[in-house]
């Protein structure tokens, strides 16, 4: 069990190769602006879903307010890059920091609230954030924040996604992550084994929000225009749908879910009148036929693959 084992080195190379190949196609225009835009959307959704998965899928804290973290990140990056003329990396860092600060604040109710009560509290928090956004003239209020420079490139996008996936999967496979999963399973038992549930719940929210903030920054600096109501309740639900669709507690699932749902959405663009009807039917069918999600830990085999620690223990 070492850092430089075969598997890690291979993954590292794979990450670089994918980056280079896709980068080549984008630069040569083989991947045109439309496809690229959708790649950006998928990337952002991956970050959002993986980070929500940490909170809801792994730690079992039911959150309906993830879009709020994204919006705080998006506005922070928007202000930093458009109004204060800062470079993108400062925008991203600021976004992540402000969002994780919000994560700490929203983490605090989790200390007392459980299940659906927590869900509604996070939803309320997200609505409050939205309404504050609507009434703050500095960021354009309901009119929105305009003319944000387009800094989100393939490189930024790709490495933010890779970093999110890497850090969160490293985290859940560490003892801290295991503590989070244990909280999701049985809080009382986790406590009895020495897990400070207060600390870990807030930590999960903070980390999740941190990455959602990054997603927000990528969004702001790609779509160039922000409006508070883009980050409403339905956006949070959309992210949750990806997580459940992919499989709670499965990072690969969140990635697959983000890609698949985006592709489905693209196909549905062609039938505008029935789009949402068909979408709802698809959601429904998936929940009926695969309620544990496409990569859910339904059976033993899947779990073994996901096995929280085993992955690298087996390779030692």
């Amino acid at each position, binding site marked *: 069990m070492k850092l430089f084992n075969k598997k890690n080195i291979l993954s590292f190379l794979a990450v670089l190769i994918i980056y280079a190949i896709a980068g080549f196609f984008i630069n040569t225009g083989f991947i045109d602006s439309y496809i690229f835009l959708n790649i950006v959307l998928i990337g952002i959704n991956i970050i959002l879903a993986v980070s929500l998965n940490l909170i809801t899928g792994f730690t079992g804290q039911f959150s309906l307010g993830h879009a709020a973290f994204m919006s705080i990140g998006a506005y922070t990056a928007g202000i930093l890059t458009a109004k204060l003329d800062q470079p993108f990396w400062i925008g991203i860092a600021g976004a992540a920091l402000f969002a994780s600060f919000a994560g700490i604040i929203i983490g605090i109710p989790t200390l007392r609230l459980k299940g659906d009560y927590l869900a509604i509290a996070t939803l309320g928090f997200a609505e409050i954030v939205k309404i504050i956004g609507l009434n703050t003239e500095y960021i354009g209020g*309901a*009119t929105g924040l305009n003319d944000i420079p387009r800094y989100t490139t393939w490189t930024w996008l790709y490495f933010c996604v890779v970093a999110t996936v890497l850090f969160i999967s490293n985290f859940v496979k560490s003892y801290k992550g295991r503590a989070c999963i244990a909280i999701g399973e049985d809080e009382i038992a986790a406590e009895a084994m020495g897990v400070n549930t207060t600390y870990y719940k807030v930590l999960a929210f903070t980390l999740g929000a941190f990455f959602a903030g990054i997603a927000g920054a990528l969004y702001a600096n790609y779509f160039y225009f922000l409006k508070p109501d883009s980050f409403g309740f339905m956006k949070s639900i959309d992210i949750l749908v990806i997580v459940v669709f992919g499989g709670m507690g499965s990072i690969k699932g969140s990635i697959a879910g983000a890609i698949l749902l985006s592709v489905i959405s693209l196909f549905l663009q062609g039938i505008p009148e029935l*789009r949402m009807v068909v979408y709802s039917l698809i959601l429904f069918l998936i929940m009926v036929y695969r309620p544990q999600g496409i990569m859910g830990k339904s059976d033993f085999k899947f779990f073994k693959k996901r096995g929280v620690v085993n992955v690298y223990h087996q390779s030692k």
Partner: protein
Amino acid sequence: AQSTSNVASNVPETIKVGLNYELSGGVATYGQSLTSGVELAVEEINKNGGVLGKQLELVKVDNKSDNAEAANVSSRLATRDKVVAILGAATSGNTKAASPAANENKVPLISASATADDVTVDSNGKVREYVFKTCFSDSFQGVTMANFAFNDLNLKNAAVLVDNTSDYSKGLAKNFKETFTKLGGNVLTEEAYQAKDTDYKAVLTNMKAKNPDVLYVPGYYEEVGLIVKQARELGLNVTVLGGDGYDSPKLLEIAGAEALNKVYYTNHYSSMDNAPDVVKFKEAFNAKYSKDADAFNALGYDLAYFLADALERAGVADSVKLKDALASTNGFKGITGTLSVDEFHNPVKAVTILQVVDGNPTFLKKLEP
């Protein structure tokens, strides 16, 4: 049968026009209404031989009332469907989000309802080359109404009720307040609601306590209908002023004729207008959709003709040429008025002030810009 595919590709081409509208999501009503208007006009145009001898083909896509999706759809229409122009979106926000893709791909994007002042101009005051709008800017309607209230109606104490989720409503309110106070009027109070609210009694009770002689309620008929009705129920019987969002037969249905006494609003045209085009439009609309047209229907209808006119002038279905033709529009006559496009890609067009009498919006006054 073998050769059909060959033949198919040789049939006279159509001219593709993209529709980027809110067909689902929060503001689906407006997107759907605009789409109906556009579809009616395109049907007529095609029946009369099309444009440049070709039929117009609409590629209709839903942007879910969402920024990112509006950008996505815009990009798709420009790169995949290769449309010559994109019509939409309904709201200013979605139009702004859709505009980078239009500029990038050099496809004109024309909105008939994005009223914000900065839709066609960026924050540095530079015009967005491929973005156009055919509706008034917020500033125009707000200023006009303030002048009308102060000078014509002789009202001095206003209360403003604004939809704080709507940039349209906020834009109108801001300009109204500025002008009204500059003229010497008092804005006693400003209260807010959120789109889709149904109960306004709390804010109306507050406003009533301030004894205003006029309410300025920029917003859309769904909410305004309820607001006026509830205001009257609370005994707040003062003059109510608004903008083109009022223009719909639904306003009367929701509020009732009696409540609408003393309601005035700015609009593009009067649906009571007896001008032949207007009558023809209203009849055609009613025949196709079996209901009465509202402002969004009319704006959508004009938008399609506006595009057709520019295409004819461009001479070919080429989006760059089309952009130039659009920019040089001068005196296009539509049912919502005659308009020219100024250097900032905004329309120069007259505003009409209507008064609701016995439930019917009645022409009162027309102001040239």
